[in-house]
């Protein structure tokens, strides 16, 4: 990362433990404004725990999370949206007892600007025409791909400066995964910074500006996709994932 770009988010020696299990053993990462940063690694490497600690869903045992230089409080996940973060959680977590429209409106729960909210809602519907057709239907009627679009649309309704995604490609067909990453690239071009946790290393590195490779709770490599390829670090990270494709 070049020195004069504004650092949006950074973690310093973040540690997360569940009982006696150390999931994250001191990880420091950063995301600059305008970047797509990928956190890669095999299942159980600690990627999701890192993301949850950043978002305040679990309390870190040590270290800190800073947003534009200011430390974020541990826990208090409900405050992250107001701070400009938005999370697309693992498994999408669509609220199936609510309609598509209600899901999107809940994404803007902390916003006070009612007028521009309606405008943004229409922009989301314009971007995702499938959601537009099902506006007032239960979110449970959506297909897996549409649910992922809804989860992303819902996060966008918060007008975040940093979008965080936890394994968004999980359970999607290869074609939908392609569309998903194309969407993320577009959103980034429109100015959104993105922190992406992924097992799909190959796809993630196609759009990421920089990546961190996590193994057993530690960061074992970082750099641009090219650097990581040249150092052969990616092949190692692939190992956990190769068989499954």
């Amino acid at each position, binding site marked *: 990362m070049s020195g004069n770009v504004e650092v949006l988010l950074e973690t310093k020696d973040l540690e997360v433990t569940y009982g006696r299990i150390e999931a994250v053993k001191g990880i420091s990462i950063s995301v600059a404004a305008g970047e797509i940063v990928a956190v890669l690694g095999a299942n159980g490497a600690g990627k999701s725990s890192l993301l949850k600690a950043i*978002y305040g*869903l679990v309390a870190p045992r040590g270290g800190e999370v800073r947003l534009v230089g200011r430390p974020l409080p541990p826990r208090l*996940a*409900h*405050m*992250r*949206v*107001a701070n400009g973060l938005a*999370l697309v*959680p693992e498994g999408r*977590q669509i*609220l*199936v*007892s*609510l309609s598509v429209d*209600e899901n999107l*409106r*809940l*994404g803007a*729960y*902390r916003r006070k600007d009612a007028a521009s909210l309606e405008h943004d809602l229409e922009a989301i519907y314009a971007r995702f025409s499938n959601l537009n057709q099902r506006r007032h239907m*239960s979110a*449970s009627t959506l297909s897996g791909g549409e649910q992922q679009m809804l989860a992303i649309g*819902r996060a966008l309704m*918060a007008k975040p400066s940093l979008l965080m995604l936890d394994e968004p490609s999980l359970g999607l067909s290869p074609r939908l995964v392609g569309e998903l990453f194309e969407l993320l690239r577009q959103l980034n071009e429109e100015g959104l910074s993105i922190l992406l946790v992924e097992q799909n290393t190959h796809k993630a590195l196609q759009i990421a500006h920089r990546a961190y490779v996590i193994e057993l709770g530690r960061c074992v490599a970082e750099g641009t996709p090219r650097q990581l390829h040249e150092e052969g670090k990616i092949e190692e990270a692939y190992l956990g994932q190769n068989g499954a494709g």
Partner: protein
Amino acid sequence: MLEQQLVNGLMLGGIYVLVAVAFTLTIGILNFLNFSIPGVFMLSGIFTWVLLKAGVYWPLAILGAIFVGAAASLLVERCTYSWMRSSDHYVPLVSSMGFLILFENLVLVQWGSDLQRVVLPFSDLNLRFASLVISIPQLLSLVLAICLVVGLRILLQRTQMGRALRAVAENATTAEILGVVVSRLVPTVFIIGGLFAALGGMLFALNYQQVHPFMGEEVALKGISAMVIGGMGNVWGSVLGGLLIGVIEVLSIHFFNADFVDFSVYGLLLVILFLKPTGLLGASGIVREKF
């Protein structure tokens, strides 16, 4: 006269509706059976009597009694649920039961266990249609119950707060991710539930003109039955169940005698659970749309 009994049953049912909705709210949103609701119901009834006896102007007495009930409900949340939310499910349940016993015994110590007569500040407020006699407090309880349920439905379905409450009902973590302050919504649920129960207790005191420290328990059992008969977590189900139980209770007395009431009410509960385990309006699919 059958028509008169049906009218009486619907009016009584209005009170069961209020209690059933109070139960439905906490179990639907917070997934726990709030046993302090009968205590809130009783406190509001007792304070209606206390304040009227003290000569407080009746509209103020009514509002005061409802306020006491809602405040008691908030106290239960502050002292139990907000501390024990992260613990096992039975902990808030048992502690809310502890509050029921506490409330009942505080009233017992202060005013004794006798049945107290509520003297109404207004005399004979009856509407007469041909041979039908409808007392205004009774009519009020039914109308108020229906209006409140409609209001609650609008709150839950049409407002941002209602969407947040339904989000918490489905998945509290997801709601929190979206910025919903769950710890601030929970007291709201208790206050709304407390208002429903308190209103029921106050109307019971005015309609039947008698209160005692354990008046909440029997009504609460009927309220829970109404909720189950109508379908758990469905507000309209609670309305249907409450009115049904009210009518059945009054008709049992009319056709048989008072000893027959529990047999018919809980018999109906068993039959409905046997024929439709999810209750009359309960969804049976995997995806349940609450409220």
